[in-house]
C-alpha cells in the first residue's frame, strides 16, 4: 500500500477541504486497507486503496455534518482554493506557470465533487473507467457521462478564465 501513499494523499486532498482532514482520512484508509488486505481479490491495489480513501472521506464528512459543522467548499472558498493545496513559495517559479497552476486548481476546486473526482482519477491517477466506476461506486455508463460533463465544464470555465485574464492584461 505504501507505494500508493502519494496517490492516496493527492486524492484525499482533492476530496477534503482541509489538509488535516485529508491526512486523517489517508491514515484511516491505509489502516483499513491493511486490516482488510487479505480480503482483496482484484489485482488493482491502487484503485482499491483509493476507493477506501473515498469511503473514509464520506464517513468523516457525515460525522462532521452531524456535528453541524457544515464547512463545505462553496464558491467563496474556491477563491482561495489554492490555499488548500499547500504550494511552497519558490521564488524562481513565481511565473506564468504558477498562475496556470492556481487557475487550474481554483477551477477544479469549484467543480461539483462528483465531477472533480472523476477528472482527478482519470487525468492524474490514470485510472480506467472500470476502476473509476469501482472507486466512485457508480455504473461505467455514469462514469462516462460524468467525465464528459466534467471535461466540458472545466473547459468552459477555463475559457472564461482565460478571457477574463486577457481582458485584465488589456
Amino acid at each position, binding site marked *: *500500500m505504501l507505494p500508493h501513499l502519494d496517490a492516496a494523499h493527492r486524492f484525499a486532498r482533492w476530496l477534503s477541504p482541509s489538509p488535516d482532514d485529508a491526512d486523517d482520512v489517508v491514515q484511516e484508509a*491505509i489502516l483499513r486497507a491493511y486490516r482488510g*488486505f487479505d480480503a482483496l481479490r482484484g489485482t488493482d491495489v491502487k484503485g482499491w486503496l483509493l476507493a477506501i480513501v473515498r469511503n473514509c472521506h464520506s464517513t468523516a464528512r457525515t460525522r462532521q455534518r452531524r456535528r453541524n459543522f457544515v464547512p463545505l467548499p462553496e464558491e467563496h472558498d474556491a477563491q482561495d482554493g489554492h490555499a488548500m493545496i499547500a504550494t511552497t513559495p519558490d521564488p524562481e517559479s513565481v511565473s506564468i506557470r504558477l498562475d496556470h497552476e492556481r487557475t487550474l486548481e481554483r477551477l477544479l476546486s469549484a467543480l461539483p465533487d462528483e465531477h472533480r473526482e472523476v477528472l482527478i482519477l482519470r487525468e492524474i491517477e490514470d485510472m480506467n473507467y472500470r476502476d473509476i466506476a469501482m472507486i466512485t461506486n457508480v455504473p461505467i455508463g455514469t462514469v462516462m457521462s460524468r*467525465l464528459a460533463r466534467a471535461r466540458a465544464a472545466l*473547459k468552459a470555465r477555463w475559457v472564461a478564465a482565460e478571457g477574463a485574464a486577457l481582458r485584465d492584461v488589456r
Partner: protein
Amino acid sequence: MTCAESLRAQAYFDGELDAMSAVAFERHVENCAGCRTLLEDLEHSRSVIRRDLPRGHAPPELRARVMRALDQEAAVRTPQSRGLGQSRGREQSRGWGQSSWRSRTFWAGAFGGIASTAVAAALAFFLLSPPFSNAMLDDVVAAHVRSLMPSHLTDVVSTDQHTVKPWFSGHTDVSPVVADFAQQGYRLVGGRADYLDHQRSAVVVYQHGPHVINVFSWAAGKRSFPENTTRNGYRMAFWRAGDVQYCAVSDTGWNELLELVRLLQNVSGRDSGIS
C-alpha cells in the same frame, strides 16, 4: 460536442475501445469535424492538467505517522513464529482450539509453554550471536517497496524455474530454492538481484492473487536471524536452509505468507535429502 458519437470519442481518447470499435471510430472521425475538434480539446485539457497540476508527494510527516500507525497495528497482530518453525498465530490457534478434542485451555497452556521456551531459546540465541540489525530489516523492506515501483520487480521474467535458477548463478552470490507453486496459488514471476548485507542477494518473486511476495536470500553468516515481524505494514518471515538465509516479504496475510515459506522449506528439505 453535438455529434452523437461524442461519448465514443471520449472512450476512444481514453483508450477504452476495443480494437474493432477503435478502427470503426477512426473511420468515423475522418468525416466528422465535430469529433476531431473534440479529440483535440480532450488532448489539450489533458496536457494542461498533467503539466500544470502539482503532483505533490505525501508530506514526510504524514508518511512517518502512517508508518507508526501500521507498526502499532502490526504489533498486535504478529504471530510468534520462531518456536516450531511454523506459525502459531492467533488465527491458527483459534481454529485448532475449536476443532480439536482437547479444550482450548489445554492448547493455550501447551503453546504457552512452547512459546516461553522459544522466547528463552531466542534470547539465548541473541545473547550468543550478534543480532540481526534493525537497519538490515529496513533495507529489506526498502528493497521490497522499491521492487513494487514500475519495472523494478524483476531482472529475469519467467515462470520457469529452470530459467530463473541458472540466471542467479551469474548474477548473485547465492543459489536459492526456485520453484513454481502455481497450483497452490503462488505463481513464480521471475528473479532479481538486489544488494543487501554487502552481498549480491537473490530475490525470487512470486505473485499470490494481487500480492507480490519477494523472497530474499543471501549467504547466511554467523548472525542470528530475527523473529518474523512486520515493518511499515509489510510482513517479513525469516528462515534458514543450509547456508542460505531467506526472508519472504509481502503485504499478504500471515497465513498466506507462511504457506509459501512452508512450500519452500519442503523443497529445500527434498533437495538436501537427494544430494
